[in-house]
């Protein structure tokens, strides 16, 4: 038995880096400090059966193939494609994404990540107004007012509250929770709302109105309505007062805000509210990014191509136009003639019309486990799990970079995403 410390949990954007993993031979016994979902991710490597051999589907039937054959065939499909889509990336390393970008550039394809279906609106709002933010340690040390808006960390980011926002003792918040106030804004009373000092229930689809009302007060205006978005006037004024009078405030927002009607306009308004608040006090805002390395995908994309997602290389250089070059748009316009999926399950999450096209074109999937997407793929190449069986770089939701560790060997014969992608790229180059 061996205990490996300071392990980084490759599950959610909280990216806890204090996990102690107990390894016993080829099994993981436990992952101390991890939350329930993090723990089950570590223990999932014990799952039997784990796919080992690549699968190739021909004439409706699947057969096992050698890794060399699967890679050669994948390279052939991509190399022959006129407009391939490379999708996924939020649950693999930055190193893997970098190779993905190189393949997309080489074949003049498109590359997009799960951002397109979660925080895409956030990115677009940031491109309009910016993003006054901080690292999570700043919040732990300074924040006296914490707001979660359309986010339920108790379920989606279980240790977010205990590591960074509400419970920890910080340098200027020695008593932890007692030195802070927690406010939750949501359409229903979530588990996070239940532990909040204040819960503000906003009518579904009315976040924009509530944000506007708050901005009006923060900017010195007078609220005329008795009620906005189902929230009584006094409550809105009270909330605005708390925001203006705290020493250090933070607004975390989740999919409840990005995916409700209004989308990027909601985020635009929330960011603008926070900007306005900086005339009164220190206030920051942060998206609650979901997948553990969805942030890292955006970072690598941005430094290599100039754009954070939805990039089209058909002209030999990167072009970006979400709505035109994003995954669902190219799929629904039936433009794509081949798809490579890495560490993602679009068949389970994409709209029906997109999935219909995924079913029509040759699809190659690289992932550690079976999924609806692997079921529908021409080629499935099982890979090792980054952050457990392979090391690699990831970025936390606040863009702090962390180098994830390897705690155990992958099953024999299973390669990493990086290795598989590099070999595909090499083969593609041989074919050209």
């Amino acid at each position, binding site marked *: 038995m061996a205990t490996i410390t300071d392990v980084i949990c490759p599950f959610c954007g909280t990216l806890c880096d204090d996990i102690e993993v107990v390894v016993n031979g080829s099994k993981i016994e436990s992952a101390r400090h991890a939350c329930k979902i993090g723990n089950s991710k570590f223990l999932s490597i014990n799952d039997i059966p784990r796919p080992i051999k690549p699968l190739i589907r021909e004439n409706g039937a699947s057969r096992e193939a050698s890794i060399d054959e699967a890679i050669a065939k994948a390279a052939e499909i991509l190399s022959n494609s006129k407009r391939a889509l490379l999708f996924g990336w939020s649950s693999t390393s930055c190193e893997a994404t970098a190779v993905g970008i190189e393949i997309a550039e080489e074949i003049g394809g498109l590359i997009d990540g799960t951002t397109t279906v979660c925080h895409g609106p956030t990115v677009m709002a940031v491109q309009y107004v910016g*993003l006054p*933010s901080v690292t*999570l340690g700043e919040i732990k*040390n300074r924040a006296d007012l914490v707001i979660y808006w359309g986010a339920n960390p108790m379920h989606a980011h279980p240790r977010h509250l205990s590591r960074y926002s509400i419970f920890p003792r910080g340098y200027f918040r020695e008593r932890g929770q007692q030195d802070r106030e927690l406010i939750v804004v949501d359409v229903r009373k979530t588990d996070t709302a239940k532990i909040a000092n204040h819960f503000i229930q906003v009518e579904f689809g009315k976040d924009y109105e509530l944000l506007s009302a708050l901005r009006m007060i923060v900017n010195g205006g007078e609220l005329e309505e008795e009620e906005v978005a189902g929230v009584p006037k006094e409550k809105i004024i009270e909330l605005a007062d708390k925001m203006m009078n705290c020493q250090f405030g933070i607004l975390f927002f989740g999919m409840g805000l990005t995916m409700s009607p209004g989308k990027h306009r909601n985020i635009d308004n929330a960011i603008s509210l926070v*900007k306005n608040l900086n005339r009164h006090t220190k206030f920051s805002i942060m998206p609650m990014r979901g997948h553990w390395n969805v942030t890292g995908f955006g970072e690598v994309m*941005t430094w290599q191509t*100039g754009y954070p997602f939805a990039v089209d290389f058909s002209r030999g*250089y990167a072009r970006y136009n979400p709505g035109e070059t994003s995954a669902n748009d190219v799929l629904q316009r039936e433009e794509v003639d081949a798809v490579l999926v890495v560490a993602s399950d679009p068949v389970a999450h994409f709209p029906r019309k997109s999935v219909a096209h995924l079913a029509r074109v040759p699809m190659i999937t690289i992932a550690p486990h079976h999924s609806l997407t692997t079921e529908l793929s021409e080629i499935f190449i099982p890979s090792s799990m980054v952050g457990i069986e392979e090391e690699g770089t990831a970025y936390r939701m606040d863009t702090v970079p*962390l*180098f994830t560790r390897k705690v155990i060997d992958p099953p024999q014969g299973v390669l990493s995403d990086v290795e598989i992608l590099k070999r595909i790229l090499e083969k593609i180059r041989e074919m050209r």
Partner: protein
Amino acid sequence: MSELVLKNGIVYDPINNVNGEKMDILVKDGKIVEKLNGNAKTIDCSGKIVMPGGIEIHSHMAGGKVNGGRLFQPEDHVRFAMPKTKVTRSGTGFSTPTTFLTGYLYSKMGYTTGMTAAMPPLMARHTHEELKDIPMIDKGAYCLTDGNWFIMKYLKNGEIEKCAAYVSWLLKATKGYVVKITNPCGTEAWGWGKNCRSLDDPAPYFDITPRELVKGLVEVNEILKLPHSVHLHANNCGRLGNFVTTLETFKVPNGTKPAAKRQIMHATHIQFHSYGGDTWHNFESKADEIAKAVNSNKNIVIDTGTVTLDHTTTMTADGPLEYYLQSLTHLKWMNRNVEMETSPGITPFIYSRKMPTASIQWAIGLELSLLIKDPWQVLMTTDHPNAGPFIRYPRIIAWLMSRKYREETASKVHKVIYDRSTIDGIDREYSFYDIAIVTRAGEAKALGLSDRKGHLGVGADADIAVYDINPSEIDPSRDYKEIEKKFSSAAYTIKDGEILVKNGEIVQTRYGRTLWVNSKVDGELEKEVMKDIEYNFKRYYSVNLANYPVREEVLTRSTEVTRSASV
């Protein structure tokens, strides 16, 4: 490795006092040598200028803040794109070029080394990941120390040796090359939305003043005997009337001796620190006052931060400054306080020729270059991309070499420059020798790299730029457009003895070294300081200590520069 002869070039090598002499430069195994065996490849350089490769001393080219600037400005990336070729990757971006493109663009101008100006320690891995993707040049990163809680506490308590041991550890942990100070104490104050507006305005709670912090870090830098001096972005950057703070800041190191043959302080992008006036209506250049102070103080080196009159991006660790700028322009704004360390911010900026302010700023950058007498003390930068993108260097060279070109530009900017700057009265024109100092030799000396870089003497790295300019045929004063063109597109860029650029085109790509300082201090002292580090990490950082240091594997051709401290 190959052997090369650069034949009959007109050589400018100020470190070796070579001023436009016709001579051959011999290269073997990536170094400059005295003689060759005979089967070397010959490059005919007759009628061409040969200089050491250019060295960038201050550019925001890699890291979280730079990437933030890219991320929130897709419009900047539509402005310039370079498709993939047989040898190069594709790239986009005008003021915030992507990583591969950054390396190519520097190389095309004959640059072979570049330093990224501001790395927050917690984000060091990000900076190095981007540096890893910058090809063509040797590189290094400046480690931010301005709002650092350990440093503030040690200095407040007078524990200078412990402070030195901590900084030594920090440089190793982050693989940094330089102690960088941005808005001393102000970046901690920004944790509360506040700022430090004078040298005696203390950081809240930590109760240490910018004066004390800078003085302390100067001492620490010399205790550690680091290759470069402290690299300071002073308080009140970009503020009206800030020249007073700047003049006072120059005096702070007085009394401390440099541990090496170089300046005691590098004060960066001084254009942003030479402002007079107390409203934007009486805003004026104080470059003459600043120049006077530098002319009488041999221990200071500055870089200019010359404004190029472009639509660009401002990005600094000076969070309060970026907030202030966006409150003037109402453009988008990004901020990212980094726990216990510093507080970067980003906002786009348009230096419009029609605006009095931007016009005066343009004048100030050039006044500094022209009024400071000793070119070794006034290095050329645009504080990329803050005052303009680095791809404008050839234009600045042309401005410096031609009074006529300056007059032509002056006639197109706001006429306020004739009253509120001295630019119109300056006759001075730089020589090629001067240009070689302010773009490579001076940088090498200031950075403590002149043993291997910034010159063409035997033993130096074979980093060489050849420009298709014949000094005996061209009159830079009149043919300034030609000067600009030829410095934009090197006839050859040679890195470690390999030809990377020919006639302005990239012919092959290589990855350069990453330089960092392996600073050594007394073992016992280091152990003691480690205890403090461990204690504070457990409590106040959001990452574990074990996950903080950057591993050497991320660095391309990791090259440590070892320095043993006096403690």
